[in-house]
């Protein structure tokens, strides 16, 4: 039976004083390593307030300096060229360039949301051993079979060859292989799990699609170079 020594904190703002008297027979579970705690008022509230004020200040400055876009009045008989959605939908719009609406607009976003929702209900969330700890050769082979398969699966239903999806996937495969073999800086990513790589791939594809849609698409949704023709 461990006996507890009463400790008196010097700073009342930091260590709230609590005394606990126990009899010898009464077992009490107390965390061995006591994590430093602080009072919510004022410590946390003050930080929240500062964060909120900084955010507000930034947004106010941005709003004073840059005007929100307002295009010409809606005209049902003329579609502007190009007609671009807000930036956070341009990934989707780029996807619509490659696939039929059912796949690009319903199936793929639906699958993404479904995948996000079910993440925590699978064992992939618990700390797992790194992907390439054992059977490295076999697993690398399986990785490349999967990647090539995914690229083929992405190209088959497409009306236009989706290089924007395929190239980042292949590059991602190279990065994973590099990390498995412990090459250079990639060695740091050696201990990452499958879930990490899947989510990173998803974010990469989303980012690439959004960037291409935002900066590299012009009239008639044709490829343009922003440094030559500007941003549409």
């Amino acid at each position, binding site marked *: 039976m461990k006996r507890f020594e009463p400790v008196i904190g010097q700073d009342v703002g930091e260590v709230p004083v609590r005394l606990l008297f126990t009899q010898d027979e009464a077992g009490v579970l107390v965390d061995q390593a006591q994590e430093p705690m602080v009072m919510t008022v004022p410590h946390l509230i003050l930080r929240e307030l500062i964060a909120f004020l900084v955010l507000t200040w930034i947004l106010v400055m941005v709003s004073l300096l840059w005007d929100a876009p307002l295009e010409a009045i809606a005209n049902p008989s003329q*579609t502007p060229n*190009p007609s671009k959605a807000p930036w956070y939908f341009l990934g989707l719009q780029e996807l619509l360039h490659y696939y039929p*609406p059912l796949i690009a607009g319903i199936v793929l976003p639906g699958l993404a949301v479904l995948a996000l929702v079910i993440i925590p209900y699978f064992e992939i969330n618990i700390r797992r051993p790194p992907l390439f700890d054992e059977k490295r050769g076999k697993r690398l082979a399986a990785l490349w079979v999967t990647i090539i398969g995914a690229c083929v699966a992405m190209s088959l239903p497409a009306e236009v060859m989706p290089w924007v999806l395929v190239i980042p996937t292949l590059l991602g495969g190279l990065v994973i292989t590099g990390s498995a073999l412990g090459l250079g800086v990639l060695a740091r990513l050696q201990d990452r799990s499958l879930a990490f790589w899947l989510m990173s791939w998803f974010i990469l594809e989303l980012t690439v699609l959004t960037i291409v849609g935002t900066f590299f698409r012009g009239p*008639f949704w044709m490829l343009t170079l922003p440094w030559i023709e500007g941003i549409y």
Partner: protein
Amino acid sequence: MLLDDLAEQAEENEPNRREFLAQAGVASLGVATVGTGTVAVGFLSPAVLYEPPKKVSAGTLGDHPEGTVHFSPEYKLYVIHRKRRLYALSAICTHLGCMTRYQRDSREIHCPCHGSRFSLEGEVLNGPAAEPLPRFPIALQEEQLVIDRGREVGPDEALVI
């Protein structure tokens, strides 16, 4: 003694009655939900649509000389006269409903939203659109060309001049 018997009986009956009441409760909840849903959908469905007429006039034959492509923004269609055939194509992209544009230099119809391209016959040349541009019948009524946007005709039908 008597009280005990009664209590026993009550215990036997009670689960049935409770079950019944619970089921009735759940059922009435279901009925209320379905009713609310039906009312909501019915309320939200527009009863009357104020939309433009399906049959529209496209002027006379003289307005469409050989080799011209007329775009009518109001009626959202092209009236095309080529190779001695006059026909009308919908100008609404079959992909996701954007208004297409006629490109004079390439003699193609392009969609600005997702880059679909159509030939002057309405066929898909490239891009995400799967269906060709719908073709509407043109009839000559008292010198006036009347286009019926409510009907679609096959890819070769046209007014031969």
